[in-house]
């Protein structure tokens, strides 16, 4: 386990900086604690609302008993005043209580969302073992659902209040009858839960089939241009119709189970009402109940079903919140991937690997000095991956043998910000962000137009600006979906060049561009890096002869070991294996 307890980076909202919860219970506790005021007020008012709802049938019974039956106008006036008061309280309690509860839920969801995003983006990385898609769903839907703890607690307490009030009212009227109703309703609900759980499971499985049709639709539309190119749009339409028909059959059959359940619930609750009516009618005949009490009992028996059913819902909400909280905690409490130091590079940003063994790499020596360009040809992509992990400080120190230093300081003793300021590793296929071309390029200190344009030119991407009416301000959609593969790659390269780091590491930067552009890029990159003050160092991991030809030194990695060193021209002349690997 590595270091815990990250220091918060956003100030101003103190609640965001609470320490990460270690388990589900801690998360639930923290949820209630940091929304204390809203939760308490919400619970009190929602309970008051339930109490008022329970009193409505009582009020109806009283009015009939004391006013309608007696014909006393004074009492009627009192009853009407009572009804108005009751409804005023009922409406007010719900309105304000529900707002407090919602505000607490939304606020908690917001805090969790931001916290999850911060944890996922933390420079130290995380070892939650979650894949990117899973992290995404944790940060979006789980953060939202874990916040439902607020609603679950509010519901639990309010429903319990309603049941207690109904209990008191019923027992006041008649003890045996009250006990009968109070036992009967929950027992009936419990009995109904058995088929309900079964039906819910079945209908969820069926809904999944329905969702499958939607997934197919988005997949086909995502590949629509490919489908069009291959003339397969009709085939795709046929496939979708089949999936849609399957989904229809599944939903209709789910609706059938739901219908059965609904029918059973309706019949059961009315049958129960028939029993209550028979018993309380008999009691009224005997004079044990007044007419108003009879009405109240019937009304309460009907009303009681609501909070009891509500409790069942609350159980489901708790289960949902708990499941989401578990996944959320896994991310929030994940150990850091690396434990960075606090030193800064000393002197020139010279990068040096001395006899390094890591993953597939075996005893690799490599030195990169300012003003130099080193090309690395790795025949095995895993070697390239391992090298990049070392240089970006993502490799766990325990797995690395030998020394990796930047500016004379071991990479693991460096402060992460200092390391990343010194060495920029532009991964192959690096993501661009939603915004504009300018916002994507302007990550470094120098953000003026001339600087960005120079970077674009060097990356062979000036056509992105000249070919668009908005120029540098042309919009870039999420993951730059509105650019072609080649445009994306050149934009990412331009971004790396514009960041202008002392040490720039590029990985296969020209795989999606054509030969002509590649040649121009090779020229542009070395010129721009040479112009830097102080002069920059560049390391290119690539199989492109155009790029390798411009490196001061080429290092050949085969099976994790350095098998050759020299200029491209020398290697081509002297090493047949090198020629085999790069000449095309």
């Amino acid at each position, binding site marked *: 386990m590595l270091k815990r307890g990250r220091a918060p980076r956003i100030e101003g909202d103190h609640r965001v900086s609470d320490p990460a919860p270690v388990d589900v219970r801690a998360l639930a506790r923290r949820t209630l604690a940091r929304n204390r005021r809203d939760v308490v007020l919400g619970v009190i008012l929602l309970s008051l609302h339930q109490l008022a709802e329970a009193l409505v049938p009582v009020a*109806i019974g009283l009015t*009939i008993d004391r006013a309608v039956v007696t014909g006393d106008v004074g009492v009627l006036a009192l009853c009407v005043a009572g009804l108005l008061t009751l409804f005023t309280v009922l409406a007010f309690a719900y309105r304000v209580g529900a707002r407090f509860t919602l505000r607490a839920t939304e606020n908690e969801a917001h805090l969790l969302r931001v916290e999850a995003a911060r944890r996922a983006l933390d420079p130290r990385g995380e070892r939650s073992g979650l894949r990117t898609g899973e992290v995404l769903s944790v940060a979006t839907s789980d953060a939202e659902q874990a916040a439902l703890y607020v609603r679950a607690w509010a519901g639990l307490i309010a429903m319990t209040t309603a049941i207690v009030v109904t209990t008191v009212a019923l027992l006041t009227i008649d003890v045996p009858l009250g006990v009968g109703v109070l036992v009967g309703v929950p027992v009936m609900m419990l009995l109904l839960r058995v088929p309900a759980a079964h039906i819910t499971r079945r209908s969820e499985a069926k809904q999944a089939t329905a969702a499958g049709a939607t997934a197919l639709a988005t997949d086909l539309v995502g590949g629509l241009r490919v489908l069009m190119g291959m003339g397969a749009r009709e085939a795709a339409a046929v496939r979708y119709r089949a999936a849609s028909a399957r989904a229809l059959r599944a939903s209709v059959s789910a609706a059938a189970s739901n219908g059965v359940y609904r029918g059973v619930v309706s019949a059961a609750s009315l049958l129960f009402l028939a029993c209550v009516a028979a018993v309380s009618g008999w009691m009224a005949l005997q004079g044990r109940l007044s007419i108003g009490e009879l009405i109240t009992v019937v009304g309460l028996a009907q009303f009681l079903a609501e909070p009891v059913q509500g409790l069942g819902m609350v159980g489901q909400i708790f289960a949902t919140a708990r499941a989401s909280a578990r996944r959320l905690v896994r991310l929030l409490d994940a150990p850091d991937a690396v434990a960075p130091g606090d030193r800064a590079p000393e002197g020139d940003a010279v990068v040096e690997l001395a006899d390094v063994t890591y993953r597939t790499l075996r005893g690799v020596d490599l030195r990169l000095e300012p003003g130099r360009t080193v090309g690395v040809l790795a025949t095995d992509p895993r070697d390239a991956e391992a090298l990049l992990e070392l240089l970006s400080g993502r490799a766990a120190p325990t797995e690395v043998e030998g020394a990796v230093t930047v500016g004379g300081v071991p990479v693991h003793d460096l402060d992460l910000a200092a390391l990343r300021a010194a060495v920029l590793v532009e991964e192959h296929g690096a993501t661009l962000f939603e915004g504009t071309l300018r916002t994507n390029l302007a990550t470094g200190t120098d953000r003026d137009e001339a600087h960005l344009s120079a970077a674009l030119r060097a990356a062979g991407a000036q056509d992105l600006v000249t070919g668009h009416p908005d120029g540098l301000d042309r*919009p870039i959609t*999420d993951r730059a979906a509105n650019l072609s593969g080649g445009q994306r790659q050149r934009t990412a390269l331009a971004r790396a060049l514009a960041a202008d780091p002392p040490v720039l590491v590029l990985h296969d930067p020209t795989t999606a561009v054509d030969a002509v552009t590649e040649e121009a890029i090779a020229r542009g990159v070395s010129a721009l890096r040479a112009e830097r003050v102080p002069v920059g160092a560049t390391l290119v991991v690539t199989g492109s002869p155009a790029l390798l030809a411009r490196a001061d030194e080429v290092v050949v990695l085969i099976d994790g070991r350095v098998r050759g060193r020299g200029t491209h021209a020398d290697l081509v002349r002297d090493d047949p294996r090198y020629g085999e690997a790069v000449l095309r």
Partner: protein
Amino acid sequence: MSATDEHADLLPTASARRTWAVLGDGVRRSGWGTLLSLVVVLIGSGVGLIAPWVLGAMVDDITAGAGLDPVLRAAGIIAAAAVVGGLLTGLGGWLVSRSGEMILARLRERVMDRVLHMPAARLERVRVGDLLSRVGDDVAVVTAGIARNGSDVVVAMATVLLTAVGMTALDWRLGLAGLCALPVYVWAARWYLPISGPYYARERVAMGERSHAMMGALRGRAAVRAYRVEAEHEGRVAERSRAAMDITVSVFRLLTRFGSRLNGAECLGLTMVLVTGFWLVRGDLVTVGAVTAAALYFHRLFGPMMFLVMNFNEVQSAGASLARLAGVVDLPEAPEPRDAREPQDASVRVKAVAHRYGPGAPPALDGVSLEIAPGERVALVGASGAGKTTLAAIITGLRVPDEGEVHLGGVPLADLGESRLRGHVYLVSQETHVFAGTLLEDLRLARPEATEAEAEAALARVDALTWVRALPEGLRTVVGEGGHALTAEQSQHLALARLVLADPPVAVLDEATAEAGSAGARRLERASLAATEGRTTLVVAHRLTQARAADRVVVMDHGRIVEQGPHEALVAAGGRYADLWRGWRGAPNP
């Protein structure tokens, strides 16, 4: 900044009237099912009226000092009504859901059909995100609306309607008293609906922006860290999350104010029923039992009324999605030419084609003419932006050029019609997409009737059978989104195998073979040669070895053809292509 700034067309959204028309059309097509289901629901709700009525009568019997028999009879009637009502409720709910699901299924199939068959030129302009949200989110929202709430809404409406009828049947004055609540309900709804609609729309937009910020940052985690822009992205997530939350809270504020007005309506109605009942009983016009029944009826309405109005937002958002779906249904279909002609052979002729992307943009193609003989292999070479991809798109009919003509097999492209065109010319584009499903299903998109043996033969032709057989379940391996992840090289192999299965006379290849690294690229080049053997082939050459393998190399620059001829001849001529070739080989340029 957001994706909505993109200069692209949004798909249309239908007007309310048009949406109703599309829905009504669906109802009509569903035949008697919908009508029958409504009748069953109405009868079921009617049976639900029996219990309060009988209870009211029982109150009168007890007041009149009757014996135990009427009480037991009342209980018996309620029990019978319970059984019948339960049956009808279940059946009605099922029937309504069934009709709704059937109408919905037909609608989503029509939508998907229109999207899939969108004219190529329109597709180029449309935002994929918009398309995806129509066939994905909107269909899901409408489905959830129908599956979760559709039948409940119908049942609740029937209950409200019939309860009003029941109260009036007890005594018209009691019915009238209850109806006093109606104007308040209407007033509340007329206040709430117009002001809440825009809020919900804004909430949806805000939530979309929030998830955009989150997805962008998390999917690009590595880049966020490399550029040390964590704080910026976290800040953006926080800002958008807070903005969405603020909207949600204000929408809810509005909803609860609406709720209070509904409580007011309940209070008014109930009070009116009791007060009216009081005077009617005093005047001996109705019995205490009737008043009891009326009060019970009215109390019974609280639930369904609340349900109906509180679900307005879901109904509204389902309505908004429905309008977006109806908008797609109304898209015009790609016109098929009346006298479509068959291409005579596999030749391609491009005549003086010029094209630019929007007014003011530099020409992407500037007077390009090119003839390709049947069976000939031509490679296009040039820098990014030279017009290679545009020319490929125009030859395959994905773009209509501003000027000039394209003939395939002697027939102008526009006279071929979409289906003939697609059967004749096949495009392997830079985009690779592995379709979710088994590998065999993916291949069968190119030829649905292909047997397993034919699929294997196609894979063998592009030298992909070895790795396919090595997959966990061979051809039956589930690939694509959520399945076994294929490498870039494998995805491209698959694209080429589809080409072999489709067996078109003309193939246009614009793939990015270099993505797979040098060794992989060489394998892919061999595969693509094998796949296109005997076909008229136009290759957008990303690697010059592709050009060397072609019968003829066409060099493009700034939308014009600047050199053409066989590889050896161009290299010997020492022109632009010769320079490129030297640079490509890594020989230092002079």
